[in-house]
């Protein structure tokens, strides 16, 4: 797969590269973006922008990392820039916030225990502050190593380890508070 892509780049068929990337990574990328912005429509918009950005930057890909890693880094930067933007901080109400009421109510009504637990966990993760949610998602959802996360997020490995630990602590507290309250 990866080799094929490089071949495409060499003949400079950027459209074909993007087609392949969309095919193979589109779905995962969309989910990654959602984990940052917590809003479906927004995640869809940003994902489209990210692919267009990759298309424009494709000639800067230096093959030092895998194409997927390169794509992920662009995506993560793009999401973070968006979260820092004026528009986001002032206008957008995240679905996670809107989910607050709904998730608890539905969860209570939900008879299937697994589903209930899934919702609780998802909700707790989505409520984490950005930096903690990021490491949890990359580590447990994407199965990335500390080293890979460190490269993708441009933080050193100890920072990632500390954040993971703290994130788990926060999750635990939040889930316990739920089950007692």
């Amino acid at each position, binding site marked *: 797969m990866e080799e094929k892509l490089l071949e495409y780049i060499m003949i400079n068929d950027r459209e074909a590269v*993007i087609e392949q990337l969309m095919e193979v990574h*589109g*779905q995962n990328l969309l989910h990654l973006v959602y984990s940052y912005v917590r809003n479906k429509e927004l995640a*869809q918009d940003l994902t489209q922008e990210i692919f267009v950005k990759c298309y424009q930057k494709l000639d800067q890909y230096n093959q030092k990392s895998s194409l997927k890693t390169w794509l992920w880094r662009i995506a993560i930067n793009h999401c973070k820039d968006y979260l820092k933007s004026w528009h986001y901080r002032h206008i957008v109400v995240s679905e996670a916030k809107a989910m607050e009421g709904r998730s608890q109510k539905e969860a209570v009504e939900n008879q299937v225990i697994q589903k209930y637990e899934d*919702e609780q966990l998802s909700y707790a993760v989505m409520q984490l502050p950005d930096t903690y949610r990021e490491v949890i998602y990359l580590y*447990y959802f994407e199965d990335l190593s500390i080293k890979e996360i460190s490269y993708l997020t441009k933080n050193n490995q100890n920072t990632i380890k500390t954040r993971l630990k703290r994130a788990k602590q926060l999750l635990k507290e939040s889930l316990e508070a739920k089950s007692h309250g």
Partner: protein
Amino acid sequence: MDKRLKNLKNALKNTVLNDLDFTEGMKNNIRNQIMGREKSSDDAILFAVLQLLVQQKTGFELSRLIRARGIERFEQEEGFLYMLLHRLEQKGYIQSSWADEEVKYYQLNSKGRKLLGKGEENEYQGRTVLHELLEGGWG
């Protein structure tokens, strides 16, 4: 906590990510944007060339000035500029003259200035008429 997080993948997929799919519609949007951008960069080059040739310039000067405007595409495709100049000359939008039998100067003539004027008008409307005036494609 660790044990519970091992299930995060399923948990998210069963809940918040449940109906979040990368659709064919999204792919098409991306394709359209990619193609749209290519086209607008063609127009940007053509427009820049016309604006710069209100005063006479050599091809070399022109390529330097276009690059200074941040039109990246030129860095790989120098030949593209000469093709464009040739085409504009053939269509009678610019005239060229030789100085010292070594340097060729290009400048807009009256037909070219009209084209530039139309381009400036249409720029406000966000249209890509310059392209059409050259009958599409770069030949």
